[in-house]
């Protein structure tokens, strides 16, 4: 017994010594000193202590590159163009790069280390992204699986975004999910209110972030978000507008409708909003209010499977089928722009219908996230 204990003590001691040696060696050997990071040919330059991943280095400088796997090299979202200083493509990056990306010097920023001067190119709008600390001011229950979260900005105290864009929300560690993750949510609020944002979220079965939002987040808690991101916004034309959304997809469209009201945009617009049962309907009164306040706006809620015995008298069927029937009767439909937000299945189906109606594909707008 005694011998075993002595052996354990010796092994532990040797282990601890080796670990200390390793930490020391890492500090000495991997001491890259100060290195320069140059973004977009001198648009932004800074010096950092070398050794960290490019993603981490940029995040520390409050430059937010999209990422969905927390830097583990499994989502492939964190691509940036490296002009100089990243060495050759790593085996961990290879599966994520096609031939064109390889030729252009695209890299996974979470995989490459900043060891010497590095020059990168990123889309200019990523440089305007900020991190916001907020307080969850109010949580509104809309349906059994849909809630609205009103976040008040604490630091910085105001945000500017293009109506239709989204933010990334940080779900911190909680019981059963010990690691923090970011998820995207469209801003649904009135963009005139710059001191806060509202999000409409649907619970996803066993989802990391929605479980946090629905079961753990309380009013007055602190929430961290960064953004804004995305290219889903109202184009500056006079074309009539077709909005098609399902469930939480109403969020960015509501924001765009506020914007149309604030800026007295008088374009003709029709909004098909699909849900499954009448219990899934929400924000109907607010949409009816927009019908009164906007110059030429029609709201068409569509229920696909109304409950037996319900007194639903509105449009019934799949939202895209109802939209197709309605739009077929519109003489100038091919002049319209289509703004789509919802599940990928709904978007695929809506895109097909808009194309069949003669609306060119470059007039279909939606957030792609494949």
């Amino acid at each position: 017994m005694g011998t075993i204990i002595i052996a354990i003590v010796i092994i532990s001691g040797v282990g601890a010594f080796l670990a200390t040696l390793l930490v020391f060696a890492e500090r000495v050997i991997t001491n890259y000193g100060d290195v320069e990071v140059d973004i977009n040919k001198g648009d932004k330059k800074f010096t950092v202590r070398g050794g960290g991943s490019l993603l981490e280095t940029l995040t520390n400088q409050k430059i937010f590159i999209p990422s969905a796997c927390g830097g583990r090299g499994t989502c492939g979202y964190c691509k940036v163009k490296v002009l100089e200083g990243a060495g050759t493509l790593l085996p961990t990056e290879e599966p994520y790069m096609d031939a064109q990306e390889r030729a252009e010097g695209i890299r996974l920023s979470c995989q490459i280390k900043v060891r010497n001067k590095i020059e990168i190119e990123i889309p200019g709008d990523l440089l305007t992204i900020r991190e916001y600390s907020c307080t969850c001011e109010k949580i509104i229950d809309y349906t059994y699986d849909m809630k609205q979260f009103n976040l008040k900005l604490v630091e910085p105290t105001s945000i500017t975004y293009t109506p239709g864009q989204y933010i990334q929300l940080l779900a911190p560690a909680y019981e059963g999910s010990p690691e923090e993750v970011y998820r995207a949510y469209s801003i649904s609020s009135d963009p005139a209110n710059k001191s806060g944002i509202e999000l409409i979220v649907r619970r996803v079965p066993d989802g990391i972030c929605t479980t946090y939002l629905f079961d753990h987040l309380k009013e007055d808690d602190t929430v961290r978000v960064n953004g804004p991101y995305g290219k889903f916004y109202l184009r500056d034309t006079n074309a009539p507008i077709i909005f098609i959304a399902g469930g939480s997809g109403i969020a960015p469209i509501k924001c765009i409708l506020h914007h149309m009201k604030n800026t007295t945009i008088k374009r003709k617009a029709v909004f098909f909003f699909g849900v499954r049962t009448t219990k899934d309907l929400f924000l109907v009164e607010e949409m009816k209010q927009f019908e009164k306040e906007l110059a030429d706006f029609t709201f068409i809620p569509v229920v696909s499977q109304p409950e037996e015995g319900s007194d639903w008298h509105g449009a019934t069927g799949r939202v895209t089928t109802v939209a197709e029937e309605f739009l077929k009767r519109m003489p100038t439909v091919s002049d319209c722009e289509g703004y789509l937000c919802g599940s990928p299945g709904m978007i695929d189906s809506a895109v097909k219908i808009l194309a069949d109606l003669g609306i060119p594909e470059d007039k279909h707008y939606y957030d792609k996230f494949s």
Partner: protein
Amino acid sequence: MKKSPQQDKLEALLRSSKLSACGFLGEDKRSLWEIIDADATELERLGRTREDVAARMQELTDQAVPALGDWVKVGKMFQVCVDDNRGMIPCPWPHAVRCLKRITTIHHLKTGKTVRWSDLNIHLIKEHGFFEGKGAPFRIEPKDLVDSIFAS
């Protein structure tokens, strides 16, 4: 069997909740390879291959996708519903595969049994023979799955 550093890394990712709430291994104490082995043996006993199973799962999902979240009757035996959510979830294995966060629920009208899977489950079964660890929220028991999807 000695594991490579890559295998260790993969197993650590699967145990973590980085990609999936509660992880892919649940409370299962077995190694990833033991889990995959045991389920492969069970599948063989049931007379099915992982390719058959994944193909049938995909077929049921595909039939309900056009209904955009409504329940549809598939054949005489099933009611199927595909609930599509925005966003993609990456496969934890080191390759560039991302799946929709889409859940298929099948309800067997005769037995009353319900089984659910996500698109990622179909990929994990087909490509990696992985049904996930016991206690993981998306673990599917091969026997329950085979009994349900091939029932007539």
